[in-house]
């Protein structure tokens, strides 16, 4: 190659870069006419009008799209053609931190992001009735629990109208297959069946195509089992479709890119760590969803969520921080919708590690913390003052908050317990933001500064959540700040972990063994009478408040930004999924 040739090539390369840059810079001109026309919105408008634009287009660029797509493999072709058919007006754009999405298989998904998708594409036999301890029918028309001597027998009668997106009817055989599959796969959520419900494969039976019979040992609570049946783990998959694509992992991998359920939406595609696209199920057996498509985008920075809702880059954004809520207060196009979560943000104190082994020291710490400043100033309304182990929204919540900052009292208790000023305690916290939209580190710095006032020196150690759990589970944390959410919408989802040492969950991690309180929790879980059950829980939570090794800091509230043209948005933490996209419409 001659030298001049090379020079020409390099200059040509520069020219290409220049053209690219010019192309990038070009579109800034029209948008500078007014801040209202966001570039993304205009690009989107280009898509809506695509069919019209094709005829007018000076080049063949747009027309070619469909042609190329049609020859490029079936899934992409479907996506591309349906992509052209659905306008932004019929699309819901939802943004939030979905980076925890690992799987879209109902037997595997156990993260908020995954459950939120699975809940739209699959259905369970029963559905929670938010604010009510009873359940609503879904795939099952009716069900009943019988005491059959040595076991409980739960019988479900399926709705004969129910059918999968494939067109097949939902049968008892599919239910048996789905639940056995969940037990066989034994992934993260499977313990809800195997441990909590003590469910065994041989005890799930299809009596006839419409009837499923489940037998549970007397040590399990049928009430708790039924509420687990409303969770995505118990969702029913289309046996024929899954078996046809089983591969080596019972179809788990395949189900990450396809759905095989009876829900109002079907999975169109999952672009890992970017977005999930759902299309309306054209053969849905219930009321057809108002919006033809739902796009769930993974946006992790709250400031970008704020920009997205302000510009209309999103119809709904999830988990705004206190500052974003404030900034949106007077926005003409968007409003803030707050919803309770069933999470609790708490500090666990190791009851065997001095000086925390003394109940008075733990009580002093509870009196040292300024809860009001945390809830009002730091969370800016993104949290509620809750100090008991059963959160607001679950059965058995009492609403008692006996602790208020009292530095003198706390100091006094500490002195009486014989704790020297300057005693050091290590506080483990996870990295990143805590529920409620505030960084764990800021919350910890606040607690550190409060406890300094009573003479305790807190050393904060921030580690990744998985590492923190590892330490915590080994009973090696001294003080650990973390959050907990019940695995199923029943008080037992909190009470057993928080009180039962034997359950090897939270009480165990904090080396707190109070057998009489644990017994109270067991009795409450098995109690079938709601009034008696409520009384038992009241007795229990009051004792844990003062005797337990916990400082419950707050119950986070989730703040959603919602564009004003969006209707029918609700969030219910006790429901699965917590947001029902099929009830949402746009004007």
């Amino acid at each position: 190659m001659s030298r001049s040739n090379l020079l020409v090539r390099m200059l040509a390369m520069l020219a290409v870069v220049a053209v690219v840059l010019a192309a990038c810079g070009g579109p800034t001109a029209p948008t500078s006419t007014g801040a209202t026309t966001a570039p993304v919105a205009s690009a989107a408008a280009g898509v809506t009008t695509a069919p019209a634009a094709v005829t007018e287009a000076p080049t063949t660029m747009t027309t070619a799209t469909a042609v190329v797509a049609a020859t490029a493999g079936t899934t992409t072709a479907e996506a591309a053609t349906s992509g052209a058919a659905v306008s932004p007006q019929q699309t819901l754009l939802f943004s939030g931190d979905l980076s925890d999405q690992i799987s879209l298989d109902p037997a595997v998904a156990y993260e908020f992001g995954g459950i939120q998708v699975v809940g739209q594409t699959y259905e369970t036999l029963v559905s929670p009735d938010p604010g009510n301890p009873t359940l609503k029918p879904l795939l099952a028309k009716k069900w009943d629990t019988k005491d059959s001597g040595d076991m409980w027998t739960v019988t479900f009668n399926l709705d004969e109208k129910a059918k999968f997106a494939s067109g097949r009817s939902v049968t008892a055989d599919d239910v048996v297959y789905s639940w056995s599959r969940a037990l066989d796969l034994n992934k993260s959520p499977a313990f809800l069946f195997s441990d909590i419900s003590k469910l065994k494969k041989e005890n799930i039976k299809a009596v006839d195509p419409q009837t499923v019979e489940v037998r549970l040992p007397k040590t399990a609570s049928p009430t708790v089992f039924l509420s687990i049946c409303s969770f995505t783990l118990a969702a029913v998959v289309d046996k024929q479709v899954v078996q046809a694509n089983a591969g080596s992992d019972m179809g788990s991998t395949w189900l990450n890119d396809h759905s095989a359920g009876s829900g109002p939406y079907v999975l169109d595609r999952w672009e890992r760590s970017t977005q999930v696209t759902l299309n309306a199920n054209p053969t849905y057996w219930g009321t057809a969803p108002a919006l033809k498509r739902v796009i769930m985008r993974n946006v992790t920075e709250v400031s970008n969520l704020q920009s997205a809702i302000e510009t209309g880059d999103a119809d709904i954004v999830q988990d705004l921080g206190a500052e974003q809520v404030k900034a949106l207060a007077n926005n003409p196009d968007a409003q803030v919708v707050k919803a309770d979560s069933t999470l609790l943000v708490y500090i666990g104190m190791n009851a065997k590690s001095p000086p925390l082994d003394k109940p008075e020291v733990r009580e002093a710490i509870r009196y040292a913390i300024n809860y009001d400043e945390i809830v009002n100033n730091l969370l800016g309304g993104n949290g509620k003052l809750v100090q008991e182990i059963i959160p607001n929204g679950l059965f058995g919540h009492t609403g008692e908050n006996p602790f208020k900052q009292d530095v003198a009292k706390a100091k006094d208790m500490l002195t009486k317990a014989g704790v020297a000023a300057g005693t050091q305690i290590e506080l483990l916290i996870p990295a990143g933001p805590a529920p409620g939209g505030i960084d764990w580190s800021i919350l910890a710095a606040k607690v550190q500064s409060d406890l300094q006032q009573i003479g305790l020196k807190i050393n904060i150690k921030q580690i990744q959540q998985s590492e923190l759990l590892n330490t915590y589970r080994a009973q090696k944390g001294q003080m650990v700040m973390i959050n907990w959410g019940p695995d199923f919408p029943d008080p037992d989802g909190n009470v057993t972990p928080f009180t039962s040492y034997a359950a090897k969950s939270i009480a165990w991690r904090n080396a707190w063994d109070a057998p009489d309180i644990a017994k109270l929790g067991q009795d409450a879980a098995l109690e079938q009478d709601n009034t008696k059950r409520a009384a038992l829980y009241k007795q229990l939570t009051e004792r844990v408040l003062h005797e337990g090794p916990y400082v419950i800091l707050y119950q986070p509230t989730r703040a959603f930004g919602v564009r004003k043209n969006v209707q029918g948005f609700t969030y219910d933490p006790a429901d699965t999924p917590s947001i029902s996209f099929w009830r949402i419409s746009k004007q």
Partner: protein
Amino acid sequence: MAITNTPVALTAADEPAPVVRRRRIGQSFRQPAVVAGIIVLVVFALAALFAPLLSPSDPLVQQVINGLQPPSASHLMGTDKLGRDIFSRMLYGTRISLLVGVGVVAIAAGLGTLLGLVAGYAGGLADELVMRITDIFFAFPALILAMAIAAALGPNLRNALIAIAAVTWPVYARLIRGQVLSLKEREFVLAARSIGVPRWRIILRHLLPNALAPLLVQSTFDLGAAITAVAGLSFIGFGAQPPTPEWGVMISEGRNYLATQWWLATFPALGILLVVAGFNLLGDGLRDALDPRLRK
């Protein structure tokens, strides 16, 4: 990533420089840019030194009621979410960053110089081994390796410092080796050897002092690069931990307030910008002074 400007500097100072000439340093240090760099560095060094005297309040003390105040007479750089005084945090942050820079360079230059001397002087298998190891380290994108090291060791400031030093030392090993290779054939070294001067004495008295000039230039650039790199690690959570007033942590804490409370992240970013620019200007000045072939 600024950390990788080290190899750039390396190519410029790959060969031994002649012995320092005082007059040239004087000339070079009269250039306005170099002077500006020195002034900036002196100001920050004084701020770091006298941080306890200069700061109006404890960098960790909170006044939650006075959170997110804009800069004013009572809070020169405003306050953060917990009502901590950002000016005080900046002063203590300067301390941390300068110490971190010095720490990284001391470890990296120390280890690199040692291995470079061994490789250059001993030659043969030792040389081959050290050079292949540096090849391996150069193959890694610095920040990805540093992140992996910091993650494996556990995220804190000390481990971030170790991680950055671990990806920086090979530059020094190659630099010193190159110096030694060319110096050891020079007349004064050959003469010393012929009259039976012990090996360690040749290294200490003849080789090392003559290799010092490029080492100094490289270290100056790396001070800035190390500060940015450690701040970068802290920013993504692999370095200093809150509530430490480290600049990367402060930028990370302020990242969601940039459009509304700009002062949270902007001041620490300006701190990094100025200090790193100061080191870069000083490095340019030193290089011009010590290596006349690169003077422009």
